[in-house]
């Protein structure tokens, strides 16, 4: 466990996640205060990555719940194991004790644990959990209500059994792309942090850390180009995920600098909309690329 913000920041950097002190502070507080952490930001700025990195840094196990429209209790919390219940009933019949066995079929033995329950039910102290609830804004509003009990008290109430509480509170990280507003009741139970697009220096560090084989000039050009692209009015501004994809793609193509042809050929790595591609060609952003000699 960490004792200071610096330790968190250092541990994250060791896992190749470059972050500001502000993010390290909220992660540190989430661990110490045992509160869930709600991360919001544009797509591809590394929200989900925080959970993965913290899993590594803490040596814990990651349980991930990907939210989608229509996600319900049965796929997120628990489900009864019906075949097993039926078999138990039949076994009870064969052994001439039907009633008693039937009464027992609603016990934890017959539960199938889904991600949220698995996170709550972990038994041993050496098997701590990081729970990632990804893209919570995609789920229905009703689903947020299920989360409330879990996030505030780390417990689940099952009508047939009763309340199951967590023995060890997991580190909970919730991400949202903010396509719709999350309910206040849920937000108030979390620590909140907004992750922005990185400034040039940070992005440069991320690229050189994540793609160590990259040529310095290329990294410099990619980052400055991405900064320019984000200033423009595109439908979907590319995030750091796109920058890294692009950098890797260029390495696969054995390029050591950016030029017009290269950018046009690999534009699909950073822009994913036809309108954006068209706009890019119209605005001729490529012309503002600094020549390799001028870089640095």
């Amino acid at each position: 466990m960490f004792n200071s913000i610096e330790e968190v920041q250092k541990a994250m950097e060791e896992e190749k996640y470059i972050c500001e002190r502000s993010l390290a502070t909220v992660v540190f507080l989430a661990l110490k205060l045992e509160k869930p952490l709600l991360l919001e930001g544009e797509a591809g700025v590394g929200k989900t990555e925080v959970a993965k990195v913290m899993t590594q840094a803490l040596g814990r196990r990651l349980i991930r719940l990907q939210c989608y429209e229509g996600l319900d209790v049965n796929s997120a919390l628990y489900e009864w194991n019906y075949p097993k219940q039926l078999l138990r009933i039949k076994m009870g019949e064969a052994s001439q004790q039907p009633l008693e066995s039937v009464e027992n079929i609603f016990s934890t033995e017959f539960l199938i644990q889904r991600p949220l329950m698995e996170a709550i039910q972990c038994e041993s102290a050496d098997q701590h959990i990081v729970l990632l609830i990804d893209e919570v804004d995609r789920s229905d509003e009703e689903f947020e209500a299920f989360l409330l009990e879990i996030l505030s008290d780390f417990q689940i109430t099952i009508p047939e059994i009763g309340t199951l509480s967590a023995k060890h509170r997991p580190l909970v990280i919730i991400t949202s792309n903010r396509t719709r507003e999350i309910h206040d009741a849920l937000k108030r139970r979390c620590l909140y942090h907004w992750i922005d697009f990185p400034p040039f220096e940070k992005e440069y560090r991320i690229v050189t850390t994540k793609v160590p084989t990259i040529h310095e000039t290329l990294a410099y050009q990619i980052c400055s180009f991405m900064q320019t692209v984000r200033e423009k009015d595109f439908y979907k501004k590319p995030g750091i995920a796109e920058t890294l994809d692009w950098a890797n793609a260029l390495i696969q193509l054995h390029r050591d600098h950016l030029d017009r042809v290269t950018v046009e050929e690999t534009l699909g790595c950073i822009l994913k909309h036809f309108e954006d591609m068209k706009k890019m060609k119209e605005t001729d952003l490529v012309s503002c690329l600094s020549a390799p000699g001028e870089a640095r």
Partner: protein
Amino acid sequence: MINQDSDLLKNVILFSQALRRRKVGVTIDNMLDALRGISLIHLQKKGDFYHLLSSNFVSCKEEMDTFDELFEQFWSLGDPSGPATKKIITEEINASEDKEEDSSFESKKDQPFIKAWSDEREANELEGRKNMPFYSPDEILQQKDFTHFRAEELEKVKDWVSILSRKIATYLSRRWKRGGKGDRLDFRRSIRQSIKYGGEIMELKMRDRKPKPLRLILACDVSGSMDNYSQFFLRFMHGLQNHYPHCETFAFSTRLSHITTLLKRRTFDETLHLLSGKVLDWSGGTNIGAALHHLHQRHSGLFHPNRSLFLIYSDGWDRGDTTLLDSEMKNLRRQVKRLIWLNPLLGNQNYQPLCKGMSTALPYLDHFLPCHNFSSLKKVCHVIMRK
């Protein structure tokens, strides 16, 4: 520890109260967590202290600006008990004393229409007591254009609009789930049922998929040319927003503002006060294309080709670029199930949608309907409810 520094504790509490007065909803839990956090960080580092408070007190990006501003004022000079803080504390105390008068928002003077609406209501309340209402058959009132109401009729129609919005919300929220006739086996209920037969499954319980709710996205034009009409539609939006969960609301003129959170859980008058401060360029010009462009960029996740209904209330007088409007409408057409445009001018029989904004948008619409009086608004509701 915390109790060694009771001044700091007191100031954090005062700070959270000041935030609450600026409509940042800080709960007692948030405050207790922040106080617990103080013992975990080094107080010499102002940045860490800032992040401690912001992560606990702020819960969306919009609240960040309010927080930053107050944080700077409150904790400036590095000394929490310094003169700057004292001043704010006294201000806060004064403010809480004459809270009622304080609700005169600074920006109100820039928003003459909103102020007029609020004043109008107060005036009407007084007048309503003096003059007993004349005999006015409701049917006639329902046909009357929103702009032609006498003061005493206005209140009545405003109430109707609220009731109508609640009715349609109830209708849309209703879910159907036929018991026993669906196409999927309901194991849970079947097994529960079997207990009474000693574990023998005698009847199979079936279940049906719940119909997915319709997502409503409403955008109201609040530019100058719409001033007389937008207050009715905002009231309609307010009612829907508060009674139908799958609804998102926007107001636009040259720019777009997401007003869902402003409309939720507040009375309409509170909402009007808030809107005056938050909605940019109220009663200004119109640029529908730019507003829709912003909507796509920021909120594209709201749209669903099979389940969302987009409703825009505007007269179509557009000062913006029609090529942008055209491409945005084309985009919108692809992304929503139904596209409805309500135009108050369509109530006039001689009106023809010739202005360039309206004629650009027209080919993409599923419905182009008048919405200038209560009876036309009712018809609009029937169209929305047609699934």
